[in-house]
């Protein structure tokens, strides 16, 4: 009996790989398993190689896993690309109607030809080869074919009962064929018990960000389609209008971010979502939000850069841009949610921070976090708050009189002067990107310039917030794995594996990188003599940020990956053992 199963389907893009994976993943999720799925795809519509990996377990899993037990191959390329990650004795199911699969002589995997297309044709349509493959998979994983009825009903119900029946027929025939001809199995573990009060939800980082925005009070999203962020827009288009909000598809990312600024200026919580190339286009507007002290939330779902880079691959290389991007100097907050639950909560919270500190807040996720789906127990819905920051009241404005309200009063101690909202009498001011005086008129005298810069700088001087650094594992451990954002799940498993091997290691993880959570990080590092910073970029941007903000020169080593694939458990474990010089444990 296995604690978990690794399953993968691969073929050419446009061949229904995604829908095959979706059906299997959702079926397993609904059976009660914790599922994590990762789609490997290319920036094209037809051809190439695409695959869909599913890891299903009897406990929560935060990454897609390094190993595969069952591989469904619709072409030889799928076998060539993926056999190396199969467990010993793993099963490759290939479509023997269209080809005869081969493998290297030393590969200990079972090649099982199943005439997927031929069976599908017998059911009425060759397109149903995917359902045949699912039936075969169900046989190997020892599921009951009936368990798939609800998902198949959901997927094909709109097309009529005949289509549902034909698809179930294809699934059952695949199931029967495999059991009649082969005797190999990788039974799934027993379905885990669900704790009292827990839900069982199948979510992606992108849908969690969309949900978080809605829960956080976002009522306008302006965005331009871009992989891997577009799914945020899809989610919000489906749900926001039901709650009184509006979605604008902008003509470009420059328009999108300036629309978000316009709405925030008017008192409406608004955001834009994008990925690297779009984020670069937003740099000038980031400065406008900072200079005019207008709240703004930008979600950057990072992908491999620079330029167009690898549009369908993951990376964590926009960290510097998020922290330092735009000309001149502005205050901003950069959040890096480490789980899908945090994608929800920190996106909601981003609106509170943007309005409290009247500055841009950037939520950095990445393709791996954004587009992967996973089962979770619940969203932290009860933790969502709405804090609007300093807003001047009608009465205060009435007492002040005409033109006496100073929106940018440089005297305020904490640097945060109350906002007025268009429509408020006596609240008129100009929000602007030019240097300005208290009422928002552009002036260039030295005294005003200096006092306004100092005012803005003060805003985040003593920034305190519940986001920052988390520490998992033995708090006295002398070794540490360090990361930010989406790598939390795989780093946690790496920590567990290293601990099982007797290596005392803790896991320090950033959910906010800017303002740098200095105090918390120093506290986390107190016992640490050696740390390994794991990040998906070429130059070690987090490592450099730590050095700059907290020191630890000579203490930190880097584990960098920038080939576009998410980092695997074994890569981290082997890098850690090499770095921590504990490869041969006594």
């Amino acid at each position, binding site marked *: 009996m296995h604690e978990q199963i690794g399953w993968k389907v691969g073929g050419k893009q446009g061949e229904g790989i995604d829908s095959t994976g979706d059906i299997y993943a959702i079926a397993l999720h609904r059976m009660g398993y914790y599922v994590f799925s990762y789609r490997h795809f290319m920036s094209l519509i037809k051809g190439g190689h695409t695959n869909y990996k599913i890891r299903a377990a009897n406990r929560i899993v935060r990454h897609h896993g390094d190993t595969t037990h069952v591989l469904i191959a619709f072409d030889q390329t799928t076998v060539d690309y993926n056999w190396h990650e199969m467990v010993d004795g793993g099963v490759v199911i290939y479509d023997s109607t269209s080809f005869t699969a081969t493998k290297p002589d030393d590969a200990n995997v079972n090649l099982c030809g199943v005439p997927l297309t031929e069976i599908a044709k017998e059911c009425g349509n060759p397109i149903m080869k995917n359902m045949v493959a699912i039936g075969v998979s169900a046989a190997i994983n020892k599921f009951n074919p009936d368990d798939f009825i609800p998902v198949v009903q959901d997927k094909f119900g709109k097309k009529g009962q005949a289509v549902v029946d034909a698809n179930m027929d294809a699934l059952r025939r695949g199931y029967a064929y495999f059991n009649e001809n082969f005797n190999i199995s990788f039974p799934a573990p027993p379905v885990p018990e669900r704790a009292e009060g827990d*839900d*069982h*939800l*199948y*979510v992606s980082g992108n*849908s969690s960000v969309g*949900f978080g925005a*809605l*829960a*956080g*009070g976002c*009522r*306008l999203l*302006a965005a331009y389609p871009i992989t891997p962020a577009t799914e945020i827009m899809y989610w919000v288009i489906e749900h926001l*209008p*039901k*709650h*009184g*909000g*509006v979605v*604008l598809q*902008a*003509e*470009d990312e*420059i*328009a*999108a971010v*300036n*629309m*978000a*600024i*316009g*709405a925030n*200026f*008017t*008192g*409406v919580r*608004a955001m834009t979502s994008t990925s690297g190339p779009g984020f670069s286009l937003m740099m*000038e*507007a980031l400065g*406008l939000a900072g200079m*005019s002290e207008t709240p703004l939330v930008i979600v950057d779902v990072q992908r491999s850069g620079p330029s167009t880079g690898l549009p369908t691959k993951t990376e964590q290389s926009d960290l510097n841009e998020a922290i330092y991007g735009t000309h001149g100097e502005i205050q901003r907050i950069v959040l890096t949610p480490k789980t899908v639950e945090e994608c929800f909560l920190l996106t909601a919270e981003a609106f509170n921070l943007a309005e409290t500190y009247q500055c841009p807040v950037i939520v950095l996720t990445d393709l791996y976090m954004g587009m992967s789906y996973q089962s979770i127990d619940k*969203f932290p*819905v009860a933790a969502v708050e709405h804090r609007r920051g300093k807003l001047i009241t009608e009465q205060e404005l009435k007492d002040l009189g005409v*033109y006496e309200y100073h929106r940018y009063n440089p005297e305020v101690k904490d640097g945060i002067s109350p906002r007025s*909202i*268009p*429509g*408020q009498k*006596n*609240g*008129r001011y*100009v*929000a*602007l*990107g*030019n240097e300005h005086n208290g009422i*928002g*008129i*552009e002036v260039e005298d030295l005294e005003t310039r200096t006092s306004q810069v100092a005012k803005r700088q003060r805003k985040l001087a003593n920034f305190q917030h519940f986001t920052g650094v988390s520490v998992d594992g033995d708090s006295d451990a002398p070794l540490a794995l360090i990361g930010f954002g989406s790598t939390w799940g795989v780093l946690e498993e790496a920590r567990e594996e290293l601990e099982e091997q007797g290596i005392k290691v803790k896991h320090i993880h950033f959910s906010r990188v800017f303002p740098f959570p200095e105090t918390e990080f120093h506290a986390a590092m107190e016992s640490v003599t050696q740390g390994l910073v794991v990040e998906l970029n070429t130059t070690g941007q987090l490592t450099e940020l730590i050095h700059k903000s907290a020191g630890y020169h000579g203490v930190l080593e880097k584990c960098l990956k920038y080939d576009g694939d998410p980092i695997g458990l074994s890569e981290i474990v082997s890098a850690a053992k090499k770095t921590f010089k504990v490869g041969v444990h006594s």
Partner: protein
Amino acid sequence: MATIQDFKTEKPTWCPGCGDFGVLNAMQKACVNLGIEPENVAVASGIGCSGKMSQHMGGYGLHALHGRSLPNAQAIKLANDKLTVFAAGGDGDGFGIGMGHFIHAMRRNIDITYIVMDNHIYGLTTGQASPTTEVGMKTKTSPKGAVEQPIAPVQLALAQNCGFIAQGFSGNIKQLTSLIEKAIQHKGFSFVNVFSPCVTFNKVNTYDFYKSHLVNLDEDESYDAHDRILAMRRVAEANNIVVGLIYEDPERASFESTLPGFPETPLVEEDLSISEEGYEEILATFR
């Protein structure tokens, strides 16, 4: 009721005689004539001499990035449709760096008024060729005369089927005020291009030039501002040197009135919280 005094702010920094004074005056008068209070006016403006309009208008202002006043203004209107919203800028701001937004704003048709102060030159940066500089005109960046064809803003708007197109002249504030009033009242995106002479850097397109060349379509009884094809022809025949209400399609539905599910309540007045049923409905989609 607000008076013109209620819109007055500090003294503008434009050169004496600048056409933008006339535009400011007409915008303020139009608001007063329509009974609009200053706090219910929002102006988003770009960069350039004309970009200072948001500071001088006397309403709420967003003096934004070069070329980006339209995205700002459209979102301001969606955020609070009780506001009268202007985008304002010059020919460089709107037809150079910001041209893409202009075309898409016409396509989208959100209920704002876009005022362009078209002086055929970059003024604030002291006299470079602009997108509407005429061929042959000598500027600091075209010392031997401009060679590129100028943008024809009104014809462009006609081609894009903009729902409201007018062209005015800073030297005729009465007509300009009336055109801006109509633009504000039009339910959808309205475009008012204004010949607003730069007295310092453009010695060709002067007040006198316009006074002697302009064709006033408002005074032509044979002209029908609801006939787009006629408008195309008349504007082209006059080489764009026309003023008046050029085209209006009162039937063209705005973005707000056609977007499925567009809220009745202004976004800014929406409750931020989600009901328990609302949460439950969303969570059900994840199961």
